[in-house]
């Protein structure tokens, strides 16, 4: 066996470059992981962490990227995740890949069944599963169905599944994002325990305090490039130090100039609490209070899983969550938008982060979609005035610059930027007083982003209150007059435009519950 090259490292990724059409996702990334350590990878949403892990695990096969992967001293050319698993690299994705109606044991050995000539040996399966469950500290019978155990335990089943494949390098993508504190602590303890057993882990996490407590080394990725690798056991490596690495970039003029004219308060929510729809003990939004004034663009910053979308959707006619409590005031009067229709009538609008699945009817025309949320405005006694509807669609096409030969074209054929303009048209046409825009520029090219920002500014100038939810801090800093930060369902900070910096926001965004209470 040739292990002479770099015996110290179990994995080296050298000069990894990955291109998607029109996008350079990774540019000359280097990553070196020592045998037996816990190596954290940090970066903002969209920095390229997940892409890098997909390259490593063979989701993007050898040949679709540039650069070398050296695993255990040998150059690896994975064509699929099967190849990478074969040598002992297992990735556990954020969305767990378990089959809900199969048992724990069946899931552990899925695709790797304990069988003789195609016939499953159940005794062998269950007894081995029981041993693996003991190793991960999960006290459940192997024949329990996945659907009957919580997310935290499911995460442990994933790890047991990885162990069954004789894992050498375990990759965990945001393993604690969906877990409560207790489950998180158990999971982190388990990962430390695996280190004692000689298993190397790569952990991707937004929770910097977790990284600080368990990681041996941290690599920071920003804009598809490796920024630095920090030795966590050295002195002086704090959360602030990591944050500085994660955000350090300057703002240029990617944003239109805008001077706000701010009026009276148009929306205020107080003590808004939302529980998870299934796990009702878990608070997804926890006592959030915020307000928006007319003409103001208010940002909500938060990392993945902080509860941003959940806050917005629960507010918008209780489209998300259970056991929702708190008060909503519109122009000083309390309102009770308990369904989407009532929310629209109350003057709220919500443009979803997921245009294709929740925002648009892709197989209908631009005209259909634009009038979709306020069809009553172009109809009399239930009959649509198509003349009027066309006029409206045409007006928005010209106003917002939707590039299409005709408003009778199908929305599915438009580019991302133009689809987003259709979404905005739909909500502007419903004539709301408050617009909540969730990731309004996700998946849109830079030019179209500028146009979207211009539209947002015009909406504010028309006296509407605008709430922008975004993962991109530069975007929030560029367009918002005031920014709230959200962490684990709590509002952890409120920063005016003049005082906002990425470091400051990131500090609040990564603030843990305990810190908030202090």
């Amino acid at each position, binding site marked *: 066996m040739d292990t002479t090259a770099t015996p110290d490292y179990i994995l080296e990724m050298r000069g990894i470059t990955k291109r998607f059409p029109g996008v350079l996702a990774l540019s000359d990334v280097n990553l070196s992981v020592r045998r037996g350590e816990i190596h954290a990878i940090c970066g903002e949403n969209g920095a390229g962490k997940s892409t890098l892990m997909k390259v490593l695990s063979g989701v993007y096969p050898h040949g679709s990227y540039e650069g070398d992967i050296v695993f255990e001293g040998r150059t690896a050319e994975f064509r699929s995740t099967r190849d990478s698993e074969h040598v002992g690299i297992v990735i556990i994705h954020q969305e767990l890949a378990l089959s809900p109606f199969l048992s724990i044991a069946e899931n552990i050995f899925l695709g790797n069944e304990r069988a003789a000539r195609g016939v499953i040996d159940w005794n062998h399966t269950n007894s081995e599963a029981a041993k693996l469950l003991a190793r991960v500290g999960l006290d459940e019978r192997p024949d329990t169905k996945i659907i009957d155990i919580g997310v935290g335990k499911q995460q442990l089943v994933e790890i047991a599944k990885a162990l069954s494949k004789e894992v050498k390098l375990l990759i965990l993508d945001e393993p604690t994002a969906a877990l409560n504190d207790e489950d998180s602590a158990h999971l982190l303890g388990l990962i430390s325990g695996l280190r004692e057993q000689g298993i190397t882990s790569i952990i991707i996490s937004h929770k910097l305090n977790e990284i600080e407590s368990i990681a041996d080394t941290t690599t920071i990725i920003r804009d598809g490039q490796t920024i630095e690798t920090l030795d966590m056991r050295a002195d002086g490596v704090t959360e602030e130090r990591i944050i500085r690495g994660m955000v350090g970039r300057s703002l240029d003029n990617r944003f239109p100039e805008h001077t706000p004219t701010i009026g009276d308060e148009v929306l205020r929510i107080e003590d808004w609490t939302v529980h998870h729809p299934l796990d009702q003990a878990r608070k997804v939004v926890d006592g959030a209070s915020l307000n928006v004034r007319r003409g103001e663009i208010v940002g909500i910053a938060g990392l993945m899983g902080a509860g941003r979308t959940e806050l917005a959707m629960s507010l*918008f*006619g209780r*489209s998300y969550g259970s056991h929702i409590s708190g008060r909503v005031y519109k122009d000083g009067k309390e309102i009770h938008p308990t369904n*989407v*229709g009532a*929310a*629209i009538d109350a003057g709220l609008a*919500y443009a*979803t982060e997921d245009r294709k*699945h*929740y*925002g*648009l*009817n*892709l*197989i*209908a*025309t631009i005209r*259909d979609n634009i*009038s*979709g*949320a306020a*069809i*009553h405005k172009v*109809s009399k006694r*239930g*009959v*649509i005035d*198509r*003349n009027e509807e*066309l*006029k409206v669609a*045409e007006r928005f096409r010209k106003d917002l610059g939707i590039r299409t*030969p*005709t*408003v*009778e*074209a*199908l929305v*599915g*054929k438009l580019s991302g930027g133009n689809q987003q303009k259709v979404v905005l048209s*739909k909500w502007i046409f419903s004539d709301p007083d408050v617009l909540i825009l969730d990731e309004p520029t996700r998946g849109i090219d830079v030019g179209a982003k500028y146009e979207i920002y211009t539209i947002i500014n015009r909406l504010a100038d028309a006296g509407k209150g605008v709430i922008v939810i975004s993962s991109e801090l530069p975007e929030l800093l560029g367009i918002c007059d005031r920014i709230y930060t959200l962490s684990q369902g709590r509002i952890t900070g409120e920063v005016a435009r003049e005082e906002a910096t990425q470091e400051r926001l990131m500090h609040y965004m990564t603030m843990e519950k305990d810190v908030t209470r202090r």
Partner: protein
Amino acid sequence: MSTDTNLAPAMPPGEQARIPLSQRLAGLGGNARQYGIFAALVAIVILFQGLTDGRLLKPDNVVSLFQQNAYVMVLAIGMVMVIVAGHIDLSVGSVVAFVGGVVAVTITDWGLPWWVAVLIGVALGAVVGAWQGFWIAYIGIPAFIVTLAGMLIFRGLALVVVSQTIRVNDDSFNSIVSGSLPNFLGFSGDMDVVTLVIGALAFAAFAFSQFRARVQLRKHDLHVEAVGLFVAKLVGIALALGFLSVLLSLSAGGMPIILVIVGVLIVAYTFLMGRTVFGRHIYAVGGNRPAASLSGVRTKRVDFMIFVNIGALAGVAAIITTARGGAAVAAAGQSFELDAIAACFIGGAAVTGGIGRISGAIVGALIMGVLNMGLSIMSVDPSWQQAIKGLVLLFAVAFDLINKRRAGTSG
């Protein structure tokens, strides 16, 4: 076997006509498919006209074509709405048998006037639809399961109501299908003038609505069909309607009442689906249910209403079926649901919902009807007729899918 070989080379002319047409009309969205399906119907009619030595389009055969297929057209109207919303209804055949039985009982056993029986039939259908709609919309059971249960439930109830054949000896009731409009305008040659006038009015109404739509598009600088195409369309429709009117006017009775009823339903439901908020909501729900819900559409109510609606239409189909047979039998409506579903898919409805038109479903029903009648006139074994209809359904949908893939609209 001879039909197989006859049919195989015969399909392509109609089908081939669809390819260049749909490509030329690519900018028109759904319209191209509509023209394609019309072309396929015309091709099939011409084919069978040849194969039957001209017997297919004999005036009395044309009348019975409509009388025989009225129930499919009525059910297809309801079914296409259900399919557009992303559901399915397997129960309509059984509902037809059950409601038909009750209608026969109200006339024959209870001696109520025929028009009361008609009202009871439609209302009972709507109640059945409300029952199924409740489980689907508000309890959240998939429509496939609820209506599969309904298929068993209402077939069973039909057997209870109609333990033996119930004759209906009410001429007014039976003339709903067999009767014709009274000829109060006399004859022109051998032609019934009432029929010709109705044909002319239908064309005038169609031409007027087309002109109006065109003028509106112009006014907003929107893309309109090329003038040549527009004129060709009008001429085509004029020829088709004129031809049909003349044929019907030469039939023994003139204008069949059932065609008037079906025609009114087609116009009303085309308006409902194309021009009303309710129709728009059906397309929105079928196209993207979560997005519709987040736009304030009350999706559950839409689901409920379309099932009430197809229930009522199944009531209408039950009246038609009972009147046509002059009796109610427990086995009535066998496989009607499959005829209606096939008509919708031949007519271009999408299995995944969101796409489908009343006109498409009607043309789909007519294609099946013409196949039925043509093959019957040719005395093809009914078993082969089944098989041939199955193949037509398969090929029509496959053709649509391949065409769409080529145009790059799917996936």
